[in-house]
């Protein structure tokens, strides 16, 4: 299960961050920021790597002893970052992809709320629920 989920806007500022353990929030925020740079790098590798990054799922960004950090960037230049525990048994590739698909679809729904102004912080019960599901809390 994910321990931290973040949505980063077009301008690289966080639009949403949620951690399962709020006391460790600072540590996760730091990881998220590091990830942004790695994602930017992946997306800006020029045309040589273009074939690789045509997929929205960017795979493992980096890992530490405790955590594995995965990234995903939409066609609309929104980035999703998910932090998973390294010890977590369920780290198979398509499960991670599934998490991002869920996240992306929840994000698209939140954007389609006519009262959401694109670029604002995401404050949506529907999105919260989806993130909670991903983090395995309810």
């Amino acid at each position, binding site marked *: 299960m994910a321990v931290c989920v973040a949505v980063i806007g077009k301008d690289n500022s966080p639009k949403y961050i949620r951690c399962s353990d709020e006391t460790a929030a600072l540590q996760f925020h730091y990881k998220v920021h590091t990830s942004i740079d790695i994602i930017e790098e992946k997306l800006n590798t020029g045309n040589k790597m273009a074939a690789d990054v045509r*997929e929205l799922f960017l795979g493992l960004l980096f890992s530490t002893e405790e955590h594995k950090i995965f990234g995903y960037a939409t066609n609309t230049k929104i980035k999703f970052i998910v932090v998973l525990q390294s010890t977590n048994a369920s780290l198979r590739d398509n499960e991670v992809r599934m998490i991002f698909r869920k996240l992306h679809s929840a994000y698209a729904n*939140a954007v*389609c*709320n*006519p*009262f*959401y102004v694109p670029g604002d912080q995401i404050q*949506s*019960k529907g999105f919260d629920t989806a993130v909670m599901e991903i983090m395995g809390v309810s």
Partner: protein
Amino acid sequence: MSRTGARLDAKKVNSELFTLTYGALVTQLLKDYENVEDVNKQLERMGYNMGIRLIEDFLARTGSGRCYDFRDTAEKIQSGFKIFLGITPTITNWSPAGDAFSLCFETNPLTEFVELPDHCLNLKYCNILTGVLRGACEMVQMEVASWFLQDQLKNDSVTEIRVKFVKRLEDAIPAGED
């Protein structure tokens, strides 16, 4: 082209186009009017204008006949929702006199993505529906009133529209039907 993505489902996308366009309209109205009540009224009025045209589309498509009983009307309205919004509201809570009933919705394409912000609690987001009902029924010479009793956007478990028969518009009834 080597597209990995699936083709888009045109029917679904079209439905979303409608949903999003309606959302854009509601937020535009909220910008244009200071008073939320005025937004509700404007939505109703626009619904009325749509209803008076939509009814001909409904009649030409279904070839359905005239209603001589309000229960009949309720069923026609239900099938109208089915045809135009792809949903079948349940008909419940008949008044003892048989002149009022409720339409209950579990889902509704209009509100598919909507989360009402706190400052809009007086907004009747789907008020266009009451206008459509009024316009459509008026064209078949029936005056009805309708209003929201429950609204899922306001945390009710269902959305409930009350529809009440007011009168037959005798003057407008075409020759041969009175």
